């Protein structure tokens, strides 16, 4: 089931690329510029999604892009797919209904860390538990950017935030571990610095049958970064490069050594039955008289 995902469609990622692929996917009827601050990583994730979809040769009509609320929630409006900008934290639940009635559709859900894991945490773990064929992309900037830098479920302990003026005393959620433990079929993490890797993981997640999660580690230089004096966008981008290590390298390091590292790689890739396909069997069973 997964073989196509590992080889076929991804070969062309290495081939010479059209330089402005995104122009064929952005909505030119939409009034630009976009809402994001200069230097933000969310646009990089959007670019990676577009190039991944383009690389997979998917028909735009067969792709839905859903989001919740927040900076990342503003992403779908710019792209010429079937798009919904839903309520805070609930995008996965909306996507579940859509996927149930349109199982052939590639339903991609983009969320921020607060959207996916605080207000939407319940939907996140249950979508994973169900293993419904959605692609969840969590843009993790460790804060609520749109409302001005309050602490989120992934804000590092001891950081300062608009709502943690004396330092943050909670521990951050490990998104990939949470997704893996909840039953996701595919879990990967990359950063907005490692653009090609991010694109590859998004492509793999999109073709994966079952619930797939890609954590795209980003930053917010205008809120959390400013409050903590973490520097400019290039400074924070450089830190993503310096702090991150591959999964292979992480396996050779001690817990102490990798404590402040961002581990990149594919953490879970397993073939488990996808929900809408299982439901088709329920229909067959019901129509055969319940046997």
């Amino acid at each position, binding site marked *: 089931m997964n073989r196509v995902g590992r080889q076929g469609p991804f070969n062309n990622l290495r081939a010479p690329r059209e330089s402005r692929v995104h122009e064929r996917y952005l909505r030119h009827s939409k009034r630009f510029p976009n809402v994001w601050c200069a230097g933000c990583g969310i646009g990089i994730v959007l670019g990676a999604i577009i190039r991944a979809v383009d690389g997979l040769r998917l028909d735009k009509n067969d792709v839905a892009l859903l989001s919740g609320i927040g900076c990342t929630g503003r992403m*779908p409006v710019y792209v010429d797919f079937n*798009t919904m900008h*839903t309520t805070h934290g609930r995008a996965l*639940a909306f996507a*579940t*209904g*859509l996927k149930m009635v349109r199982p052939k559709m590639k339903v991609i859900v983009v969320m921020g860390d607060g959207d996916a894991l605080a207000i939407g945490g319940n939907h996140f773990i*249950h979508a994973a538990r169900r293993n419904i064929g959605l692609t969840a992309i969590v843009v993790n900037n460790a804060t609520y950017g749109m409302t001005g830098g309050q602490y989120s479920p992934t804000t590092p302990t001891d950081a300062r935030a608009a709502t943690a003026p004396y330092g943050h005393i909670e521990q951050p959620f490990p998104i990939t571990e949470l997704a893996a433990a909840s039953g996701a079929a595919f879990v990967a993490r990359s950063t907005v610095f490692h653009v090609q890797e991010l694109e590859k993981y998004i492509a793999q997640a999109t073709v994966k049958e079952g619930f797939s999660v890609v954590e795209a580690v980003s930053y917010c230089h205008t809120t959390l970064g400013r409050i903590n004096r973490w520097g400019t966008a290039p400074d924070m981008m450089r830190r993503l490069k310096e702090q991150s290590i591959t999964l292979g390298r992480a396996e050779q390091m001690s817990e102490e050594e990798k404590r402040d590292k961002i581990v990149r790689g594919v953490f879970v890739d397993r073939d488990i039955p996808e929900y809408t396909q299982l439901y088709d069997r329920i229909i067959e069973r019901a129509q055969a008289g319940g046997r």
Partner: protein
Amino acid sequence: MTPYPTTKSNVTLMQGDQACAEGAIAAGCRFFAGYPITPATEIAEVLARRLPQIGGKFIQMEDEIASIAAVIGASVGGVKSMTATSGPGLGLMQENIGYAAMTEIPCVVVDVQRLGPSTGRPTSPSQGDVMQARWGTHGDHPIIALSPASVRETFDLTVQAFNFSERYRTPVMLLMDEVIGHMRERVELPDLEAIERVERPATTVPPEWYKPFENFPADVPPLVPFGEGHRYHLPGLHHDERGYPTNRVDEVQPWLDRVFRKIDRSLSEILLYEEDEIEDAVTLVVAYGVVSRSARSAVEMARERGRKVGFLKLKTIWPFAEEVVEHAAARLHRVVVPELNLGQLALEVERVVGRHKVRRVNRADGEMIQPAEILAAIEERE
């Protein structure tokens, strides 16, 4: 006669919750998402069994918030969809009901009302969600709410809820209550072929011209399902005709005007009610849902005693039938409004006919209003 798959003939003994589920199927509902809650759980149980038999789909979500979200998502996919809950769950659904109102997505929300507030008395009837149904989500928006008074009416109004929802691109609430939901009655269901089903109008324009929120002549722009070539955006933000977020008042105001206009101009179709001997009445009883059964008995008892009492039974409670009540009450001295709450729809009646004319008969302790209590209000001296 075309018997229903679950029955041997059209005449059967059926519970209100079951009638709701069968009505949904008869209306063309093929997706249900819900979360267990007394006294609405039976609707989910029936549909979990019935929907896959006819190629539909059922899912039990992690909570009511997710249930209504999945229902809206499925409706965007082009499938008639429904959820069912009770007061506490309806509270959780409100934000997404607002999303459905904002994006004009057809869906049916069944609320089998139980006594509140909070956990209240889960197995006792109530009409305590009348205002929640109208104003539960924030902001100004139109809503349609229907309230059945019998098992057969539950079937009919469930079909009607879907038809209104599809025709006007709006969420529709069906306000049942614990008694109607759990009561079993002998019902004669209509022939399946004879049931009127409204389907979502298709667009006639090519994808590049399609605007999901166009200021359409009929005020209800066609909604094309996702995945059929008309790619567009559905936002909870205020939006222009294409669905793109806007802060411009010259784009926000026309949307507001249109969504209210699409309901207001169709009131003659949307307002469902029964009136009885109103012409020469001195006193009018206005009731809805399960209480209208007690009210009808009270009206008959009063007439036997020679009193001229008219009866107005509302099936559509939102939008409120202002003109119907106003017209009926014009010559009257008294309007009696019995409700299983401490006065919710009575506020609307008072607004229309004046406070001095209205006698409220209320109970919010989980017990039914007896005909004698309504009769006393009819006969009470000035």
